[in-house]
C-alpha cells in the first residue's frame, strides 16, 4: 500500500470497560504516532492496565473501538497479536523454565524453528545482558533480572508496538535505572512504545507524550515539559537542625529566594526553577551563613503534585504510592 502519511500505531476512540458497576475505563481516546513513546500515567486503579489489556486483545471493550497497527483489536485480534508485544505488570514468564528456555519457547511460538529460536535467543541474551543468569530458573531470578528476560522475550520479532505495563513496578532504584537504559536503547532504535507508570519521573524520563488518567478518564495530556509547566516547578527543601537555626535559615533565604517556611517541620521550601543551579545557590547561602541543617534535597514534582495541580485534589486511597525524590 502506498500511503503518504503513516497511520498512527494506536488509535482508540471512546474506549470503555466496565466490571459490573465499576467503570474501569471511561470513554478514553488515545493516539500514539508511529515511532513515538507515549506514557499512560496514573495511580493504582486509574484504568491503565485495563486499557493496555484492551489494546493487547486480552480484554474486550464494552464500547468504543481501537485500532493497533491498523487492525481492529476485536475483529482482527490475531493480526494485532502479530504486530504487538505486550509485557504485563509482573514479568510474565514460565517460572519453571530458565531464562534462555523462556526466550526460546516464545521464539518457537512465534514460528521459529528450533535452530532459529536458539539463534535469536542467544542474540537477545547478549543484547539484554541476560548471559550471567541465562541458565537459571526464572523463579530464582530477582525482579530486575526477570524484567530483562521479559523485555528480551518481547523483542523476538521486532514488534510494531511494544506495550510495557509498569515496567519498573517493584524494582529497586538500580534495577530501575538498568530497565530505563534498556528502554531508551529500544526507543533510539525507533520502537513505538506505550508505557504505563505511576511515576511522573519515569514518564518524564522516557516518554515523548504523557497522558495522565484517573478513574478511567484522561485528565491531562501533553509533552512532559507542558505537563510539568502545569504541575509546577521543582523545589529545594531545607530542614533546619533546630528551632533557632530555622529562624536563621528563614532570615538568610527569604531575601534571595521565593520561599515557603513550614515552622512545624523546621523546613524551608525554596522554588527551584533552575533545578541544580538553584540547589547550588541554596547550598552556598546555607554554608555562608554557617546554618546547621539536617537535610537539603531537590524535590521533583511527583504524581501527587501533578494530581493536586491538575485536579485540585490529592490522589485517593493509594497505599502503594510512594513519592519519588532525588536527594542532593
Amino acid at each position, binding site marked *: 500500500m502506498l500511503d503518504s502519511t503513516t497511520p498512527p500505531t494506536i488509535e482508540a476512540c471512546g474506549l470503555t470497560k466496565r466490571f459490573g458497576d465499576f467503570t474501569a475505563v471511561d470513554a478514553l481516546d488515545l493516539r500514539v504516532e508511529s515511532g513515538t513513546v507515549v506514557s499512560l500515567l496514573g495511580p493504582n486503579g486509574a484504568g491503565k492496565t485495563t486499557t493496555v489489556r484492551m489494546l493487547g486483545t486480552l480484554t474486550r471493550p464494552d464500547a468504543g473501538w481501537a485500532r493497533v497497527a491498523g487492525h481492529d483489536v476485536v475483529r482482527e485480534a490475531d493480526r494485532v497479536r502479530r504486530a504487538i508485544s505486550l509485557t504485563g505488570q509482573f514479568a510474565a514468564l514460565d517460572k519453571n523454565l530458565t531464562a534462555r528456555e523462556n526466550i526460546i519457547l516464545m521464539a518457537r511460538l*512465534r514460528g521459529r524453528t528450533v535452530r532459529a529460536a536458539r539463534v535469536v535467543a542467544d542474540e537477545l541474551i547478549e543484547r539484554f545482558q541476560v548471559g550471567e543468569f541465562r541458565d537459571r530458573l526464572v523463579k530464582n531470578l530477582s525482579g530486575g533480572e526477570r524484567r530483562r528476560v521479559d523485555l528480551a522475550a518481547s523483542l523476538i520479532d521486532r514488534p510494531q508496538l511494544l506495550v510495557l505495563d509498569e515496567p519498573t513496578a517493584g524494582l529497586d532504584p538500580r534495577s530501575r535505572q538498568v530497565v530505563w537504559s534498556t528502554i531508551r536503547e529500544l526507543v533510539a532504535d525507533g520502537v513505538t512504545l506505550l508505557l504505563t507508570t505511576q511515576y511522573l519521573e519515569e514518564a518524564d524520563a522516557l516518554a515523548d507524550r504523557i497522558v495522565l488518567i484517573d478513574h478511567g478518564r484522561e485528565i491531562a495530556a501533553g509533552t512532559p515539559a507542558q505537563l510539568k509547566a502545569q504541575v509546577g516547578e521543582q523545589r529545594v527543601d531545607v530542614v533546619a537542625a533546630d528551632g533557632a537555626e530555622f529562624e536563621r535559615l528563614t532570615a538568610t533565604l527569604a531575601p534571595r529566594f521565593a520561599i515557603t517556611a513550614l515552622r512545624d517541620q523546621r523546613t524551608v521550601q525554596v522554588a527551584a526553577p533552575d533545578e541544580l543551579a538553584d540547589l547550588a545557590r541554596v547550598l552556598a547561602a546555607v554554608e555562608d551563613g554557617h546554618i546547621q541543617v539536617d537535610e537539603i534535597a531537590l524535590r521533583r514534582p511527583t504524581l501527587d503534585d501533578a494530581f493536586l495541580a491538575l485536579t485540585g485534589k490529592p490522589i485517593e486511597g493509594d497505599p502503594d504510592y510512594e513519592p519519588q525524590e532525588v536527594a542532593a
Partner: protein
Amino acid sequence: MSVSATTIPDPGFGGPIRFVRDTALLTARSLRAIPRVPERLLDVTIQPIIFVLLFLYVFGSAIHVPGINYKDYLFPGIIGQSLAFNAIGAGVATANDITEGVIDRFRSMPVNRLSIITAQVMGQFCEALLGMVIVVVFGLILGWTPHLTLVHATLLGGLMVLGTFAFVWAGVLFGMLVRSPDAMQGVGFIVVFPLSFMAGTFVPISGMAAIPRAIADWDPISALVASVRGLTEGFRSTGSLQLDHPEIAMALWCVAIIAICVPLALRRFNRTLAG
C-alpha cells in the same frame, strides 16, 4: 461507532497445523515443570501412599469387608481416589499459571487460543498418568494382586484414561473459575475430599449412615472405585443402579463431565477470563 464485542468469534485459530504445533510446544512446556517442581507430582502420589499405609497398617485391622481381603479391597479405592484428586492438582496448576500472567502472555501472542488450553489439559493429563503409575507400582510392591483378564485390563485402561481426562478438564475449569491456587486447594478440600472418602473407598457404602450413603450411592467417584474393584478383583458392589453397573455408570459420568466442562472451560478461557 460501536463494537459488538461479544458476537464476533475470536479469530485466534490459524489452522490445524498451527494448532498441533502450538499445542505440542505448550505441552512440552508443562511437562518440563514435572522434574523441576517434583512436589507437584508428590501431591498426587504421597497422599495416596500415606493413605495406603494408614489404612492398611493402622485402621485396616478394624475393618472387615466380607468376601475380600482388605488389601485387595483398599487398592482399587486408592486408585479411584487418586484419579479424582487429579482434579485438584490440575486446578491448582491452572490457577497458578493464570495468576503468574504467563497464560496472558501466550494469549497476547499469535498463538492458537485453543492450543493454550489443550496443552494445559495435556500436561496435567500426562502428570496424572505418571502419578497413577507410581501409585499402582507402589500397590504391587506391597502385595496387591489384581486379577485381570486381557479384556478387563483393556476396559480398565480405557476407563482410567477417560476418567483422568474428565477429572483433569473439571480441574482446569475450576482452576480458571477460582483463579487463585489457594482457593483451588480450598475447593478441592471441601468438595473432592469428602466425595472421595464417601465413595466406598476405604469402607463399604452399605454400612454408612443414611445421608452419606445416599450421597455415596450416586457419587461419581463411587462408580469409579466400584469399576476398578469389579474389574481387578471381581468384587461387585450393590446398593444403587450405578453401583450395580459401575463401568457403564463411570463411562456416562465421564462423558457427562467432559460434555459440561469442556465447553464451559473453553468459554471461560475465551471470554470471561478476557473480561
